[in-house]
């Protein structure tokens, strides 16, 4: 499966040309994920997308939640912020609006996003903060050794639920689509090319880009495996008549996470206006919050109190 076969040669050529940029991101720290873990592919696809989009190491901040995914936070050579479990969207949002010239990426797992901190997701989407959020959905709590998450399929026997999960799993994209988002996409950790392409589009989005990655966790998720997904995935870009600017199409496409699982750009609002551009106080500002820290004359306000 690939959304971008025709571009494939271009991609490789560009990567070849920008090998130096690519190598600059490569850390000498040893990655600690299990073998076969989907996080390897995700990290690689992110690096590729950054290089292809010509986003330089210095213009980038990557924010990581706590979980297996976050263990990559110090294994990429760029400024990173490894925050607290469940909270990374808000921290990243605060960073992103402080300097909108920087590319801000945030990553978190399904435990973080849909159990510990869904509030942050809801309002991150609603406020359309200028950032890309990569949602690592491995359908369990990897780092704490395989407990069920809100995404774990019914009946799965997990650590702490030995008799099997008794409640239905959540559908991440369906949930996000109910919040009037401006960018929603799905991809799959088994396909680096597809991920790369989706990440590139997300990074170019003005506003909050939500990208769900079905991430393989061979250690704890024996059910929705690489093969399981490969047998079910359908790329939206191959579907005739699919309109990614139509939220109804998106809702419909998001629905099935059992049989025919749609990946690609589910929804994109081309007229998306990021948060800070909606504010009367910031609309016309040419500078960033990080450039503006100096004494502000408050004489006028003082005189009002006379």
């Amino acid at each position, binding site marked *: 499966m690939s959304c971008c076969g025709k571009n494939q040669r271009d991609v490789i050529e560009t990567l070849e040309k920008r090998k130096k940029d690519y190598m600059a991101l490569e850390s000498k720290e040893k990655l600690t994920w299990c073998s076969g873990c989907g996080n390897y592919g995700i990290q690689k696809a992110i690096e590729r997308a950054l290089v292809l989009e010509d986003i330089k190491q210095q213009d980038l901040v990557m924010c990581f939640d706590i979980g297996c995914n976050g263990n990559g936070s*110090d294994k990429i050579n760029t400024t990173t912020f490894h*925050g607290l479990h469940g909270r990374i969207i*808000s921290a990243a949002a605060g960073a992103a609006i402080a300097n909108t010239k920087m590319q801000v990426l945030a990553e978190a797992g399904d435990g973080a996003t849909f159990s510990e901190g869904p509030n*942050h997701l809801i309002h991150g989407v609603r406020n359309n903060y200028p950032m890309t959020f990569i949602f690592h959905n491995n359908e369990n709590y990897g780092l704490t050794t395989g407990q069920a998450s809100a995404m774990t399929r019914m009946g799965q026997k997990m650590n702490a639920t030995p008799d099997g999960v008794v409640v239905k799993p959540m559908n991440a994209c369906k949930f996000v689509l109910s919040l009037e988002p401006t960018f929603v996409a799905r991809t799959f950790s088994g396909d680096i090319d597809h991920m790369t392409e989706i990440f590139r589009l997300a990074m170019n989005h003005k506003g909050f880009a939500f990208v769900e990655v079905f991430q393989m966790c061979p250690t704890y998720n024996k059910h929705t495996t690489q093969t399981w997904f490969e047998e079910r995935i359908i790329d939206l870009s191959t579907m005739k008549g699919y309109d990614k600017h139509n939220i109804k199409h998106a809702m419909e496409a998001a629905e099935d996470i059992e049989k025919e699982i749609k990946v690609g750009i589910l929804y994109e609002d081309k007229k998306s206006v990021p948060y800070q551009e909606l504010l*009367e106080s910031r609309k016309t*500002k040419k500078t960033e919050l990080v450039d503006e820290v100096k*004494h*502000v004359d408050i004489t006028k306000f003082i005189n009002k109190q006379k």
Partner: protein
Amino acid sequence: MSRITLKVAGESGMGLASVGDILARTLKVMGFYVHMDREYPSLIKGGHSNLQIDFGPKKIHSLSKDIDLVIALDRAGLVEYLNTVKRGGVLVHGYERAHMIKDLEETAHKRGVKLVYLPAREIAYSYGGNELMTNVVLLGLLWRVLGFDLDPLEEEVKRRYGKKPKILEIDLKCLDHAYNTDEIKTPKYDIKVPKSKPDTILLDGNRALALGAIHAGVRAYYAYPMSPSSSILTYMSQYADETGVLVKQVEDEISVAQMAVGSMFMGTRALCATSGGGLDLMTETISLAAMTETPFVVINCQRPGPATGLPTWTSQGDLNMAIHSAHGEFPRCVMAVSDPESSFELIQHALNIAEEYQIPVIVLSEKVICETKTMVEPFEQNKIPIKRGLVTAPKELAELTPQDRFKITKDGISKRWVPGSSPAYFHANSDEHKEDGVLTEDGDEALEMINKRLRKGDTLLKNLPEPKVHGPAKADISFVSWGSSKCTLLDAQEALKEEGITMNFLHYDYLWPVKTKKAKEFFKNNKQVHLIEGNAGGQFGEILEAKAKVEFSDKLLKYNGRPFFLEDVISYVHKHVK
């Protein structure tokens, strides 16, 4: 006359605030010093509340308990507040039911309080006014009792309602009627109007905090509404369009704190404020700020807990929480404001300390400071330099390495730079880490980094100013204070001086880490040193006793939601100084 204490009492939502504002501003324009607080329940309408104004020719710092004059806007005001008027005082009202009045008149007579009555509603309606304009009638009546010229009051009413000529006309008729009518005879105070008018501003502590923050270059303010911190959010939002500061009401306090940390990490100045319950939710983020060495400043506007507690009342109960909350061991700074001036200044220092030491700073205020409007000299600008502790020189930025960010240093402070300003990247890591932020679980490496962070606390302690002694070095009775009690002590000092009793006090702005040198001297110089604190535990007292190895003679503690009144201190002193 040193001061007159007025109370405007009525149901919440009865137009109490506007009566108070008109009174306060008129008195201020006339040259008086004004000090105004509001007591109200946590409801929007209904429930009795009151607004107290202390005024006089000299600066007033605190509130009195005993009231000279009450203006009761409704029956509740009349019934509830009659007992708070001192002997010889006056209660002005417009309550027309005769049968109730009998009892009240008797009570008033027994207490030596004069009741002054006009059928305020009738008068207001006779001029085409409404219920709210009965307030204006009573205002005119009160003004008559105070014995002042009507002009300044009329001017203020014109200033406020000039844009609504119809209402203004009725208001002026109501005022005039009450002030001039010969239907009744009223007692009259003889108060000298000051000759000079001090150049002052009238504002509450929360506005002073907002102004200090804006002045000090705060560019992002995040908050979730919670009394008594909410008005900071309101004030900041009022200043947003003109200053470009980004003001965001966030979904909860966890997100508030996280966004503030994110913005600070990115290199701007961010601020947030809350009350105790909100600070509870922020504690994990305080710990994160400490670990990642990201500056973080939060204001805790205290109200009594636990839980929802007394949402609209005052407290100093969160000190231990400010010092000890959040997991792990790390340095932090806790400071406490005591009035608008210190609110304006300390918030600027708080931001400097947070950035220079790369630590969390918690600024404590109290409802009585947050919402009491008082008169202070116009704030001096550009007095406190902005210190960010950032690397900004291009050459130095170009030469930075990732290891500089958390370099093990003697004073514990490592270089900090704005992401994107240098080719050097770094990892801000909530896991224990090495100098470039890369995770480590090696015992020796971890210990080195933990100690480096802790050394920032030692450096901070060295550099913090000692507390200040107010009054003579030696006195008949002494106090150690922090927060709002400074204001009460300042007024008490004056009052006691007139009785021939000397009182001094050692006041702490910076509570943690705690300085002890001055305290030790103070205890040595003075024969009886007492603690004054607005909590049950004497929280700061315990810390000081342990750290400075001193012992208080006794403790004046108050924790029923009310601030220290002048009378509280005076009667306590009388008990201890014979």
